[in-house]
């Protein structure tokens, strides 16, 4: 099977394949243009007659569970990333698969981290054919070098749920690492020695996979309450000595920045939101992981405190700063998608206003609405932005695929999308004539805040009007690009190979861009 075929140009002018890993794909058609038809995918019908009457689904090992799930060549195995860089289960699955001599598997993680780089050996020996999920760090570099047999497919968190529901991503076996579970398979992430918060990224997997294995290191007597994963979806339960390192869900990017440059970015962003009239009683916001985004939350909190106002809800990734706002009464609810630190885990367990959500409720574009479009302002990052406000989050300017998409694409539907980004990173200008990879179309990105000026998308005439006469350094995107090039020099375009190595799927499942192999 060839990696891809039938190249075409999509609605944002990018050349993309229409056949990827042997399956038909739809090229991107524009925001809101692709309307799916048909019905959702349905998993096979199960029968209670095939499951123990006493509800005890515990079996002795992950290897046995995989065998009893019918693991064979060419299957798709999914995992989730709530442990982030502290996951201890993902690698064990493929160790077992390799021992069993199974080949050509597809790994469909909700995200990958550096801790998964040992899986490169299974990509090399053919145990894993390709990854559908995110390809971060070493896995991304391996993919960029054209070494993966199949073509990588990157989706947003909401896009993954959509793809599973629509049958675009069929999961044969889902393995869910659960910090607490009972023998029946009911499971939660908010308690247990390896508590990681929530398990929402594994929800679709549990509902739609042909077979589901729950792996836990904290088996509690039935019933495990509260449960986020329902045992009725689960085939087998496996008990391991340790499933994850909860401290490693915290990363440097979940601490407030100490960099004066980034603090300036955060301050400018908060001032922009204030002057644009976004910060008012009952508003809602989302700030992703990352020191700058977290610092913006601190500025929001200060403004609300001073004015005696409160936000109605904040979308998480929760962290200690958001939890402080909730506990101080500066925000009524946290609608959480993933927990970024242990304070978030505690709050999730203890506070009824800290609610767990899943990509279905928050981000799924093929649902009957989702939370993302209800948020007043969202603060996101980007590796590059171009003069048409298109943005890239997956590749660097040299073409290397190093990051996943996360919820980034889904958040673009918020009422105001702001990207606070440095004008250049170590002589790498962030604003380009054309981004290396389009992950978000410019029409959805409203404001670029840099340390040397703020550019408002010309489509947002309302924001331009509101900021008229502001003391903030409002500039055009072209002025910012020129300023970066005055300092750094005009960059050359990276010379990339003609071969595609990964596809970027838009929130509706269409292909918005394809990533090329780097020439090393």
């Amino acid at each position, binding site marked *: 099977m060839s990696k891809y075929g039938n190249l075409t140009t999509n609605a944002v002018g990018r050349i993309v394949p229409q056949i990827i890993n042997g399956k038909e794909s739809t090229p991107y058609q524009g925001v809101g243009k692709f309307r799916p038809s048909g019905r959702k995918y349905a998993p096979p019908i199960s029968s209670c007659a095939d499951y123990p009457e006493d509800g005890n689904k515990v079996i002795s090992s992950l290897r046995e569970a995989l065998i009893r799930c019918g693991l064979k060549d060419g299957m798709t195995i999914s995992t989730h990333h709530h442990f982030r860089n502290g996951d201890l289960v993902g690698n064990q699955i493929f160790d077992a698969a390799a021992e069993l001599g199974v080949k050509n598997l597809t790994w469909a993680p909700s995200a990958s981290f550096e801790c998964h780089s040992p899986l490169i050996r299974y990509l090399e020996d053919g145990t894993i054919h390709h990854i559908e999920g995110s390809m971060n760090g070493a896995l991304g570099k391996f993919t960029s070098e054209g070494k993966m047999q199949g073509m990588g497919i990157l989706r947003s968190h909401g896009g993954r749920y959509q793809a599973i529901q629509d049958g675009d991503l069929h999961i044969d076996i889902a393995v869910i690492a659960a910090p607490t579970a009972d023998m029946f398979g009911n499971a939660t992430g908010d308690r247990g020695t390896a508590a990681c918060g929530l398990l929402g990224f594994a929800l679709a997997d549990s509902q739609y996979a042909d077979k589901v294995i729950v792996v836990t290191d904290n088996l509690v007597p039935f019933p495990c309450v509260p449960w986020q994963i329902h045992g009725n979806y689960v085939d087998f339960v496996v008990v391991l000595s340790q499933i994850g390192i909860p401290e490693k869900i915290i990363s440097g990017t979940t601490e407030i920045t100490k960099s*004066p*440059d980034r*603090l*300036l970015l955060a301050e400018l962003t908060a001032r922009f939101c204030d002057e644009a009239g976004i910060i008012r009683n009952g508003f809602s916001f989302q700030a992703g992981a990352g020191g700058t985004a977290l610092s913006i939350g601190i500025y929001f909190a200060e403004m609300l405190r001073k004015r005696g106002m409160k936000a109605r809800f904040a979308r998480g990734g929760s962290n200690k700063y958001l939890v402080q706002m909730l506990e101080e009464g500066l925000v009524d609810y946290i609608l959480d998608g993933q927990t970024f630190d242990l304070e978030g885990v505690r709050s999730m367990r203890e506070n009824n206003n800290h609610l767990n959500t899943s990509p279905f409720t928050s981000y799924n574009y093929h649902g009957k609405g989702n939370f993302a479009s209800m948020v007043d302002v969202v603060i996101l990052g980007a590796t590059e932005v171009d003069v048409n406000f298109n943005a890239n989050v997956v590749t660097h*300017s*040299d*073409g290397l695929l190093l990051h996943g998409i996360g919820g980034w694409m889904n958040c673009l539907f918020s009422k105001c999308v702001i990207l606070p980004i440095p004008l250049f*990173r*170590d*002589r*790498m200008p962030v604003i380009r004539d054309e981004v290396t990879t389009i992950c978000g179309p410019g029409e959805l990105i409203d404001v670029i805040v840099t*340390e*040397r000026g703020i550019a408002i998308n010309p489509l947002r005439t309302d924001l331009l009007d509101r900021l008229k006469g502001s*003391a903030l350094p409002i500039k055009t995107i072209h002025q910012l690009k020129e300023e970066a090039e005055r*300092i*750094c*020099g005009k*960059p*050359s375009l*990276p*010379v990339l190979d003609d071969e595609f190595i990964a596809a970027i799927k838009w929130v509706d499942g269409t292909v918005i861009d394809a990533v090329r192999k780097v020439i090393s």
Partner: protein
Amino acid sequence: MTNTATTGNKGKGVRSDCHVTLELMTVGGIDIQVNSKVMALYGKSIIGLCEKIFQHYEIKHARLLLEDSGALELVIAARLEAAIRQLTGSEKEYLPAFLPQNNYETSKEQDRFSRLYLPGNSPSLMINAGIHKPNGIILDLEDAVAVQKKPEARLLVRNALRGLDFYGAERMVRINQIPEGLQDLDYIVPHNVNLILVPKCESAHQIELVNQRIDALKQQHGIKSHIWLMPIIESALGVLKALEIANCQNVVALAIGLEDYTADLGTRRTNEGSESFFARSMIVNACKATGIQAIDSVFSDIADMEALGQTVQRSKAMGFDGMGCIHPRQIKVIHDNFAPDEAEIEKAKKIVSAFIDATEQGLGVVSLGTKMIDPPVVKRAQQTITRAIKMGKLPVDWRNEFTTG
């Protein structure tokens, strides 16, 4: 004599800099090897720049290894030039373009609330310094640069003065102690430095030496603009000579350096500052007596903004006009606390308003109620108003809403 030189910095944590290993050869032509994190974007232009520099120095055979962590052109040029000079002893200069926006003068009396110290051999800290809007940016050639790195730091500082945007901040350089610091002047005077800090100053004679060298360089390069001096008093002798130093030509401010001063006294620096009260008071008095600004020492705890604010308040109360900072986060705190407070602004508004009224009425004397106002008081009030407007504490049209009530 060795034929290999290394300059610059490399390793984990080094950003926006590069490391040069240069070997001069007798045959073989020019061999340039570049390892760069921005190779895909700037590889060709980096190699082109290096070739140009070799041509400039008429070097035909050399082996160059450039390990680049995202250095700007002006940094690469300084590093390579330093290596070439080390090996050849050449005094030729390879000068990057001078940014037109850096071509401005500063005045004797302009605000010098904050001046941000930056190590003269650390390019990553220089690039964004101006965006934090300190009143002055000091490129430091003295204590922040290791002795063996001083020759290359001079070239880097020179290139920074030419090619980095200071965003309107007063362009300052701290040279080395006199007499060594006299050499530094060659690298900064021709490149529109606005103000030179002279460390460990203990006599008017040292300032005279600096002025003489500056005058010679100005004449040589046809420079007309003012270059101001800010001697730093850092010893007991310097404190006692403060008045004669303050009286020297081109001196616009005296700064006090408390780390060295307390070491000279054999005491320890405290937050309360009782050990330095005499010295600080002496500096303030010398400055006020000669009509220049008094600048306080830096506050070294970059995490404690509250203590910094209190220190600035004490400083202002003593009569200081500004202080140094070692981290951009300190700038706003320093500005906020040196800025005129509400009572000062109200008083200034009344005085300036009375002055305008008197002028409009053709009166030679300004009075407020039954009190006569002296011209220096009016001048100070006008300065307060100007500052308050500049710092956003007073609208430009404040008089429209002002009534003397």
